[in-house]
C-alpha cells in the first residue's frame, strides 16, 4: 500500500537515517525550491509531517534497474507546503536495505497536487452547477 510504504520511509528518516540516501540533485532541488539545505533539514521536515496533503501519484518499476530480477518499485507522491506544490519519489532496494529519495522537486501538476478529494469536490460542484 502506497501510504504504508511512505510511513515506513518516514520511520527510516526518523530512526535509520544512514540507510536513507538522497539521489544527486535532490538536495540541490530541496535547497533551491524548499529552503531545505541539508539532509538533516530534509529528514526533519519529512518526519514532522511537512509534506501536507500527501497524495500517491503512481507506482512504477525502476526503469534503470540493472538487476531486473530484484524488482524495485518507485513510489511517487505529490504534496503541498504552504502555497508550494511538490513531488517526491522514493524507492527501496531490499538487497542493499537502502531507501533512495529519487526526486524532491516542485510539482508540475497543481491540480493533482491539491489532492483527489479537492478534485472530486471541484468536479461535483461543476456538475451541480451545470445541472442548474
Amino acid at each position: 500500500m502506497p501510504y504504508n510504504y511512505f510511513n515506513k520511509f518516514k520511520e527510516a528518516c526518523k530512526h535509520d537515517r544512514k540507510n536513507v540516501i538522497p539521489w544527486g540533485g535532490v538536495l540541490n532541488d530541496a535547497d533551491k525550491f524548499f529552503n531545505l539545505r541539508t539532509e538533516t533539514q530534509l529528514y526533519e521536515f519529512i518526519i514532522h509531517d511537512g509534506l501536507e496533503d500527501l497524495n500517491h501519484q503512481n507506482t512504477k518499476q525502476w526503469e534503470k534497474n540493472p538487476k531486473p530480477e530484484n524488482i524495485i518499485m518507485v513510489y511517487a507522491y505529490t504534496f503541498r507546503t504552504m502555497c508550494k506544490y511538490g513531488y517526491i519519489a522514493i524507492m527501496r532496494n531490499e538487497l542493499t536495505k537502502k531507501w533512495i529519495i529519487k526526486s524532491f522537486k516542485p510539482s508540475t501538476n497543481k491540480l493533482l497536487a491539491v489532492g483527489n478529494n479537492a478534485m472530486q469536490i471541484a468536479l461535483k460542484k461543476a456538475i451541480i452547477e451545470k445541472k442548474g
Partner: protein
Amino acid sequence: MDDYICPACGSDDLSKSTLVKSIQEPFACKKEVEIVNYTCSTCGFDGDIFKENEKALQECIDELKIRAVKNILEDFQQNNYSFSAIERALEIPQRTLSKWKSANSKPSAAVVALLKYLHLFPWLIEVAEQKYDYPAAQRIHISDALEQFVNRMAFDNESRELKTSTTIRFLQVEISNQSDVFPAENNSFGFTFPELATISTGG
C-alpha cells in the same frame, strides 16, 4: 563505513569524486565548499552515500549565518540606528545586539530570522515601539508603503504632477479618477495624493 556498494542497485562499480558547491546566504556573500560525490556507472546513481558532506555543509551555512548577522548589524550602525534603542523597543536585554555582533558562535535560527526581517522592514522596530498595537502597526506599515510608492513615482518639478511620459502613467489616471477614494478628511494621514506629490518634490 558501510559496504562500498551503490545503494540503489547494489553494484560495486562506484567512483568517488569531489565537487565544489556554492552556498548562498541572504545578507552574506557566497561561499564555496568541497563535497564528496559517488557515482555508480551501472545505474547512474550519484550522491553522498556515506554522509560525508553533512558536517562540511552545516559548518559552511553556520559561518555564513554569522557573517549575515554581522553584516546586518553593521548596516544598522551605518544607518544610525542605535543598538540600545532597538533593544529597548524590542524589549530585549541591553547589549544583546553588540553581543550578537561580536559573537563568533552560531547565532540561533530565531536571531537570524528576526534580524533579516528587521533589515528588510526596519519599520517593524517602530511597530515594537508602539507596543505591537494593531492599528498603530497598520498605520506604520501603510505609511512606509506610501513613502516607497511615492518615491518610485516620477513627478514634474514645475507642475508637481506625475510625468505622463513615464511608464506609470496609469497611476495619474487612477489618482485623478479616484480622488474620492482617497479624500483627505477620511484617510489617516490627512492629505491627498497631489499633496503627497508636493511633499515628495520638496515643494
